[in-house]
C-alpha cells in the first residue's frame, strides 16, 4: 500500500482484518513467516500479561503508579515491528508493546514503574526514556531525524503521541520542523479516545487527527489501530518513505484504552460501561487470535502454554527487582552533570553524614 493513496479527509480507517479475523484485503496481508506471526501474537500476550500483573502488583501496594496499555497492543506492536535495529523509537509513556518489540528488557520497564531511574538506562537499544510532559518528545524525534540527515545516515525515527498531545504546540512545531527539513520521522498518534477524562471531541474540531498532516504538506493516514496488519503496513510504508529521503508522515491509530489512564484514575466516572463493552468486541488480540486460528497457527493449548510461560517469566522478573531497588543516595546526585559541582558534592556529603550517623537524632 502507498500512504499517498489514502486521504484523511475521506475519514475512512484503513484496515486489513475484520473483527472476526477475516481478511478484507488479501493483497495487504504482510509477508510474514509463521514464526513472525506467532512472535507478534506472543508479544501481544506478553504485553497484556505484563499489564495485568502490574495492575495487580499495584493494587497489592507492591508497585507505584502504572499506565495500562490494554486495548492498544496492535497499535504499539504493529507499528514498531516496522522498524529496523538502527531506527530510533521515541515514546510518550503508553507504548509497552513497542518497547518490547524494540528490545527493552522487562526488567527495565518494571524498574521504572517501581520508581527507580535505572529503569530508563537502557543499554544498546535506540530508544528514549519515557517522556511525561505531553507531546514534548515529538521535537526530540525530529532532532534525531535532523541529525540523521546531517550525518547522511539512513535510519528513521518512530515517535509516539496521544490524542490529547495533538492539541499541544510542540506537536505542531514538530510536524512543521519535520516537514521543512524533510526529516525521516514517522509520527504515530495513539488515539485512544481519551486524554485522562477528556474526550477526543474536546481536543479538536478536526474530523480525525490524521488530517492534521495536510497543513504541513505531509502524508497522513487514519488507521484501524486495533488491526495489527493495518498498523504494520501503514507504518512500514511511512518508514520506507522516510528512509528513501521522502520525509515525515503522520499516522493516526484509531484505538481505545480499555483500562484506566493510570492506576490513580477511575474511568467509570467519565465513560459509559456500554461504550467499553462495545470496544471489548474490537479487542486487538481477539481479532489476531481468530486470524491465527483460521490459519492453523494457534490452538487453545498453545495459547495456554504460552501464557503460562510468559506469566512465570513476568513474575520472576518482578521478584528480581522487588525490595532490591531502593535508590542509592549517590545516584540522586551523581547524574546531573558529568562532574558534580562543589555545591552538589557538599549537599551530598552533608546528607550522607546525617543519614549514616545522625538519623536517629531526636
Amino acid at each position, binding site marked *: 500500500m502507498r500512504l499517498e493513496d489514502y486521504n484523511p479527509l475521506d475519514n475512512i480507517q484503513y484496515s486489513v482484518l475484520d473483527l472476526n479475523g477475516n481478511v478484507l484485503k488479501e493483497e495487504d496481508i504482510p509477508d510474514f513467516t509463521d514464526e513472525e506471526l506467532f512472535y507478534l501474537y506472543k508479544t501481544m500476550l506478553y504485553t497484556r500479561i505484563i499489564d495485568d500483573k502490574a495492575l495487580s502488583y499495584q493494587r497489592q501496594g507492591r508497585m507505584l503508579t502504572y499506565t495500562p496499555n490494554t486495548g492498544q497492543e496492535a497499535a504499539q506492536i504493529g507499528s514498531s515491528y516496522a522498524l529496523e535495529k538502527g531506527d530510533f523509537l521515541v515514546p510518550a509513556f503508553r507504548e509497552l508493546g513497542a518497547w518490547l518489540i524494540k528490545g527493552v528488557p522487562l526488567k527495565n520497564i518494571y524498574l521504572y514503574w517501581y520508581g527507580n531511574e535505572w529503569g530508563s538506562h537502557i543499554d544498546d537499544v535506540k530508544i528514549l*526514556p519515557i517522556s511525561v510532559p505531553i507531546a*514534548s518528545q515529538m521535537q526530540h524525534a525530529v532532532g534525531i531525524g535532523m541529525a540523521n540527515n546531517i550525518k547522511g545516515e539512513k535510519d528513521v525515527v518512530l515517535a509516539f503521541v496521544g490524542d490529547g498531545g495533538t492539541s499541544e*504546540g510542540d506537536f505542531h512545531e514538530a510536524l*512543521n520542523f519535520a516537514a521543512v527539513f524533510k526529516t525521516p520521522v514517522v509520527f504515530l498518534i495513539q488515539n485512544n479516545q481519551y486524554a485522562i477524562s477528556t474526550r477526543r471531541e474536546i481536543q479538536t474540531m478536526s474530523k480525525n487527527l490524521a488530517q492534521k498532516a495536510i497543513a504541513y504538506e505531509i502524508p497522513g493516514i487514519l488507521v484501524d489501530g486495533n488491526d495489527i496488519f493495518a498498523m504494520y503496513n501503514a507504518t512500514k510504508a511511512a518508514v520506507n518513505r522516510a528512509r528513501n529521503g521522502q520525509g515525515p508522515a503522520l499516522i493516526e491509530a484509531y484505538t481505545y484504552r480499555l483500562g484506566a489512564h493510570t492506576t490513580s484514575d477511575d474511568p467509570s466516572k467519565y465513560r459509559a460501561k456500554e461504550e467499553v463493552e462495545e470496544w471489548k468486541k474490537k479487542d486487538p488480540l481477539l481479532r489476531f487470535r481468530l486470524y491465527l486460528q483460521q490459519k492453523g497457527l494457534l490452538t487453545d493449548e498453545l495459547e495456554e502454554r504460552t501464557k503460562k510461560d510468559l506469566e512465570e517469566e513476568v513474575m520472576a522478573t518482578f521478584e528480581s527487582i522487588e525490595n532490591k531497588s531502593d535508590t542509592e543516595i549517590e545516584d540522586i546526585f551523581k547524574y546531573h552533570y558529568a562532574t558534580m559541582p562543589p555545591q552538589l558534592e557538599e549537599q551530598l556529603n552533608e546528607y550522607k553524614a546525617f543519614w549514616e550517623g545522625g538519623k536517629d537524632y531526636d
Partner: protein
Amino acid sequence: MTNTLNIVQAVNQALMDEMRLDKSIVVYGQDVGLEGGVFRVTENLQKEFGVKRVFDSPLAESAIVGTAIGMAINGLKPVVEMQFSGFVYPAFNQIISHLARMRNRSRGKYNLPIVIRAPYGGGIRALEHHSESMEALFAHIPGLKFVVPSTPYDAKGLLIAAIRDPDPVLFWEPKRIYRAFKQEVPEGAYEIPIGKAKLIEEGDHITVVAWGAMVRDVQKASEIVKAKGIKPEIIDLRTIAPMDRESFVESVKKTGRILVVHEAPKTLGVGAEIIAIVNEKAFLYLEAPPTRLTGFDTTFPLPRGEEHYIPSPERIAKTIEDLVKY
C-alpha cells in the same frame, strides 16, 4: 597571534575556530544562517560551513531547543540561538523538563552537549521583551549551567568551553556591551573554565560582585569611590551556575563587606543566593549588611524609562560608600 575584537566578533571567532575543529557542531536558529543573526554574531558561518551545519529554522523557540535535544542524543553538538533572551519562554518546557534532566533521567546514558546562546539585558533602547535579565529563572534549575561573559577575551574562551562541555550550557551575551569596547583576543581555540569567577580589581574595603554588562558599570563606580579613598574588590562572576562560591566568600573574609550588583529584579535574584552563601560561609567576618543593588521588582521599562532601571555607576558608587561607612 591576537586580533583586536569586540564581544560580537569574539563570539563569532569562537564559533569559527571550534566548528573547524569539531565537525559535529551545528548552528541554527532564527535568521542565524544567511543573515548571520540580527546582531551578526553568526555572520559568515554559513558561508564557511554550508547550510547543513549552519541554517535558519522556522520561528519556534520550543522546537529549536527540542530538536537540539534530539540532535545531541544522535551525536551532534548543537549551538542554537534564541534571538533575544526574552523570547526563550516558549522553550522553557524543553529546557526545564528535558534539557536539564536527560542525563539524570537516563542515569547517564544520554548527555546533552548543547549550548543555547541568547543576547540579554537592557540599555539598547529596544522594544518590550528585548531587555530582560532573567538568569535566576535558569540558575534555579538543577542540571543546567549558566554562563555570562563580560569581555571579548572571556566571551571567546567561555563559549569554547561551553561547546566542549558535555552538559547543557546557557550562554547569555550582554548585548549592551556587544560592541562597547575591543580587546586583544588570541587566534585559535582556548578555554576559560566554566564555574570560575575572575578577580577584576583587588581592593580592601568592600567586595563587589557583578556579571555581564554590570561589570563595566561597577568598574566606573570604582573609579568614583577611589577618589574618596575607597578601594573595592571587584569580582566578575562569569558563571552563574555552578557558582564559584570561593571567589566572593574568600574576598568577603578579607573586606568584611559585600555588594552584589545585577540588572535583574531584586527579589529572589542571583544576588539573594550570593548573600545567603556569604551568610553561611563568612558570617563572622561581616562588618556591614550584605547588600544588593539591582533592577526593580518591576517589568523592564520601555526605552524612555530604562535609565532609571539599570543601576548607574553613580548609584553603585553611592551604595559602596554607604556600606563602607556603615
